[in-house]
């Protein structure tokens, strides 16, 4: 682990992340001032009291951090070695895909499909192992959750009657 600075592209991405935070903070503060009252009718702290403080502080600190980030482009250090954006993005994409699959097909089928897909990309070439895992893990989880603990598993969309 050696400290390295971000590449310029990564700094832009960090700036984008901070700008998203700023937008969120401004929206939060806007709602706090427009919809929520500072004091109640009886003169006690109202529902907007804390949100206004938190919101203003949030805008202030995020704004400050953005200014710093713009002024001193060397500012932030992280300990890094051999980072690979593609892999992180791949895993995030797989996770999002899994969330969608769960909604559509329910706990068991979605898990089988997702694991088969994820393992075929990440654990390339080991077909037998991947096949066994993609069936065994969902089965194990199903037995544990549904049969043993009687806990909820995500239902499939087409089971619902709308």
């Amino acid at each position, binding site marked *: 682990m050696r400290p390295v600075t971000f590449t310029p592209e990564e700094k832009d991405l960090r700036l984008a992340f901070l700008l998203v*935070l700023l937008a969120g903070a401004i929206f939060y503060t806007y709602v706090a001032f427009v919809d929520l009252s500072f004091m109640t009718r009886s*003169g*006690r702290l109202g529902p907007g009291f804390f949100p206004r403080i938190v919101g203003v502080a949030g805008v202030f600190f995020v704004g400050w951090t953005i200014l710093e980030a713009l002024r001193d482009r060397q500012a932030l250090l992280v300990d890094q070695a051999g980072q690979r954006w593609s892999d992180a993005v791949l895993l995030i994409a797989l996770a999002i895909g899994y969330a969608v699959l*769960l909604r559509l097909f329910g706990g068991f089928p979605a898990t089988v499909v997702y694991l088969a897909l*994820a393992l075929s990309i*990440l*654990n390339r070439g080991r077909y037998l192992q991947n096949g066994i895992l993609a069936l065994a893990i*969902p089965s194990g*989880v199903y037995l544990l959750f549904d049969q043993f603990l009687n806990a909820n598993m995500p239902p499939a969309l087409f089971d619902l009657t709308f």
Partner: protein
Amino acid sequence: MDIFSDLIMGLSIAITPINLVYLLLGAAIGMIVGVIPGFGPSAGLAILLPMTFGMDPIGAIMLLAAIYYGAMYGGTITSILLNTPGESATVASTFDGFPLAKNGRAGPALVMQAVASFVGGTVGVILITLLAPMFAQVSRSFGPPEYFLLALMGMLTLIVMIGENWRLGIISALIGFALGTVGVDLETGQGRYTFGSAELIGGIYFIPIAIGLFGLGELFYAFYQGLHRFGTGGIVNYENEDRFWPTRMDWISTRMTMARNSVLGFVVGVIPGAGATIASLMAYSTERSLSKTPENFGKGEMAGLVAPETANNAASSGAMIPLLTLGIPGSASTAVLLAAFLLWGLRPGPLFMEQNPELAWGLIASMYLGNMALLTISIFAIPLFVQIIKVPYRILGPTVIVVCALGTFSVNASFIELYIMFAAGIVGFFMRLYGFSAAALVLALVLGPLAEEALRQTLTISRGSFMIFVERPASVWIILVTLMLVVMLPLLNRIGKKAQMVKKLDAG
């Protein structure tokens, strides 16, 4: 001695073959439930409560109690191995537990947490046995002013968590506070940031945020670092894992930590509503300010794991006091136990232990046995759990996502919470990447609503006057203790360090 004859009577009830089976079964189920991210003791108990319908009350309550503290043991395992706290009481255990595993000390960390849990749990039961009536007085001296002060005390840990990059730490905490304000305002009933959604009436639940930020965030970050390409081990430095048992140093250096924090955890646990989460946070920050090497905290200090673990288990025993002596559940888990009592037609209250001595003392006796059983189960199960980190990361990664997703969903059967968990995972990755503090965010989310609600309740009760904080004896005590923690301890520490330096200089 009355207490001992009561306890022996309790043991004679607890040690029947069928009750021992219930006890062991409960302990094992509790461990499993605790290990699953998302399932804490309360969710596990609620789901398994129907199992006990039709059982005789003593066996049933022993089973449920065993599930309860069994889940407290199991909850830490994923905190250490996967940085995924199963519930709020084990968040503090990730601070040093996960770094320990990363440094290749997963085995010793798991053993020490089991021992810490055992010590905390057992000291807790001893204190229940000896001093239940006295602590009943403690649990009834807490009102909104005290809860507000307690929440502030818990926030001392926030300052620790904010860390070196203080501006990003503050932003992280502010995000947590902001998320904490979502939901129907307790005082006025007005919706805040709910935008008409029924899912958001109850606010943003802590568990999906914690699992996403810690568990998935860390996972995405590990892939970003390319750790899954290194064959086995991945995120955890498995190759360095040279010994399974803790070293002599581990035992010696944490003796006092366990002693201190079992008492601290118990006392905080006795306070209804404060419970295991605040106990574990206070234990962590107290231990850090007492430590001679506070700079090692957060980097894999054994005391930093032992302190919250001892405290949260002692607190879960402590939470039995208000339940048994007042009929007030001190936590979500004991609320389920209360529901069970009511189902069997029992009336927990000040007369409960007198009117139902068999049940009360049978339960207390079973807690001694249960803690011993869990220590044994843990020691045997730990080698199995250590195998988890030997699984290549490219396989473990996708599997962890499955377990986190299904665990999160199953608690409230909510897709919204599932999506929140995934979103928190992505945000957690960027926070980790850019040096924000996920721990500060999660702590703020837990403590913010507590502090806000308690302050507003206090000011309604006092009609706007802050004098209430110095008029109530319990409040004054908390203020004094907080001041001691903030001012006295660091000061003493500094003096101690100086004395050591002088000694070293003298010697050299």
